[in-house]
């Protein structure tokens, strides 16, 4: 059985007298420990898809269709029970770690509180230990000391490691990462991608990676959805989509990617 089964997922925004769909009838399956890449350009609906799964859509957006996570229909779940899954069994990593961290609290406090929110009865002391362990797992050096530092005392890449540590503390079965390396320098990006791969090897967590970067997704995902204007134009294994793209849009997108090892004369554009 799949870990996550999505059928006919539609997200729409209410306009004055009609609905504007931003995700239209999405279907996909994600097996346990699988890595699914959702790629598309701006406005393709890829981020709305992840927010819809997490039940975090902005006000004014409606969600229809079915999202079944490990046998539970998420769309029918009351918010109280969704909160118990979100951040515990399904964790999320966003593009900008600084805006996801509270500047007034130490990173240790924030990791520990996120953990305690899902593990009632856990003492502060135990939670602090979990936080240090999680920071060690994402290779933050000197974690026992840095646990008392504030977000601004970390570099961008280190902050993203803190976010990943927070996501990992509850040992989630699914990690949804929305452009997790887009704001990072290329050498730091390589480290974070390596870290995500290592975490998946060690914990067996499934991953949904949302990105505009085809080279990044090719290094991480084993299955792909290519989205455009709210619809999936192509899906398949990464090998299929990259070596034999069926849809004209996917071909055009791949043609437009600048290659580091190659000069391709005139870049073709859609």
């Amino acid at each position, binding site marked *: 059985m799949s870990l996550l089964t999505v059928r006919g997922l539609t997200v729409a925004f209410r306009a004055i007298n009609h609905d504007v769909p931003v995700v239209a009838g999405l279907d996909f399956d994600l097996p346990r420990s699988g890595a699914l890449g959702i790629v598309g350009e*701006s406005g393709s609906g890829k981020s709305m898809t992840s927010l819809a799964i997490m039940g975090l859509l902005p006000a004014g957006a409606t969600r229809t269709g079915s999202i079944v996570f490990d046998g539970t229909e998420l769309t029918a779940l009351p918010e109280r029970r969704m909160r118990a899954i979100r951040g515990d069994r399904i964790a999320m990593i966003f593009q900008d770690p600084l805006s996801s961290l509270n500047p007034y609290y130490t990173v240790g406090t924030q990791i520990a509180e996120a953990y305690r929110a899902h593990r009632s009865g856990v003492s502060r002391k135990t939670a602090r230990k979990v936080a240090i362990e999680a920071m060690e797992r994402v290779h933050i050096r000197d974690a026992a000391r840095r646990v008392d530092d504030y977000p601004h005392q970390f570099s961008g890449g280190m902050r993203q490691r803190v976010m990943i540590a927070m996501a990992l503390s509850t040992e989630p079965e699914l990690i949804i990462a929305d452009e997790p390396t887009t704001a990072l320098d290329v050498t730091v*990006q*390589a480290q974070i991608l390596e870290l995500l791969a290592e975490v998946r090897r060690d914990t067996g967590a499934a991953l949904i990676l949302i990105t505009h970067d085809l080279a990044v997704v090719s*290094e991480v995902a084993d299955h792909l959805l290519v989205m455009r204007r709210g619809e999936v134009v192509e899906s398949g294994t990464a090998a299929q989509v990259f070596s034999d793209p069926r849809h004209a849009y996917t071909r055009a997108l791949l043609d437009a990617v*600048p290659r*580091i*090892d190659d000069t*391709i004369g005139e*870049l073709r554009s859609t």
Partner: protein
Amino acid sequence: MTSLLSARDLVKEFPVAGTQGLFTPAKRFTAVNRVSFDLQAGETLALVGESGSGKSTTARLAARLIDVTSGTVHLDGTDITALHGDALREVRRQIQVVFQDPFSSLNPRHTVERIVTAPLRYQKREIPGGTRAVAQQLLERVGLDPAHVGRYPSQFSGGQAQRIGIARALAVRPRVLVCDEAVSALDVSVQAQIINLLRDLQREEGFGCLFIAHDLAVVRQIATSVAVMTDGTIVETGDRDSVFGEPRHEYTKRLLAAVPRINPEWEAARRRNAAARSSEEAPA
């Protein structure tokens, strides 16, 4: 041979906020440290580096948007480092800048006609045929519909807005075009269009281009020569294919190795499949 744009030993220091005491001067941070480069007409020199490498500060120094702490910039053999008044105004005509975020560099309350002809007004130029005709020509040059001169920036997409920024830069026929992450915020298909446009315009106009970017794959497509920056200094410089093909400096090697790549086997298969498809589609 005199270079079009020549920078020698550029240094830029900034005071560090909060370090100034009552009787002690603020500590100083060196953002750019003894940077030298030459740019020839018709060429594109890419300054690449990660955040904090000093690449944008170097570009700003070269364009005289900020003043150097020490060092010199020569445009066509003339030292422009200390110019002011009308002479500086003329330098600013000859060196135009295109920025990363197209919308924040376009006044939302001005029409496109007013935006793209603004440098002409700033230069107090006579405009033969009036601004409307000039604006229409400029829009056509960058691939936009000349009928849209009366529109406002919000009525354009990101890629179109960047074309407007380029049209404005071209209005005064600059000798040097500085592109500061000019394609970084754009979707990949739009990015490809803007890179092609810049190449075409450079072929036609012959300006030298100082191209600031963090994306090495983009740089590979557009640069003739490359200078790699880190911690305020250039660690490696050379023509494009030698820097990418045989990097000498450790940092350059590390940088190139970190760039994500599509699996080369998939790439080869895709090219084969595309070739097979086009020969099928071609009439026998």
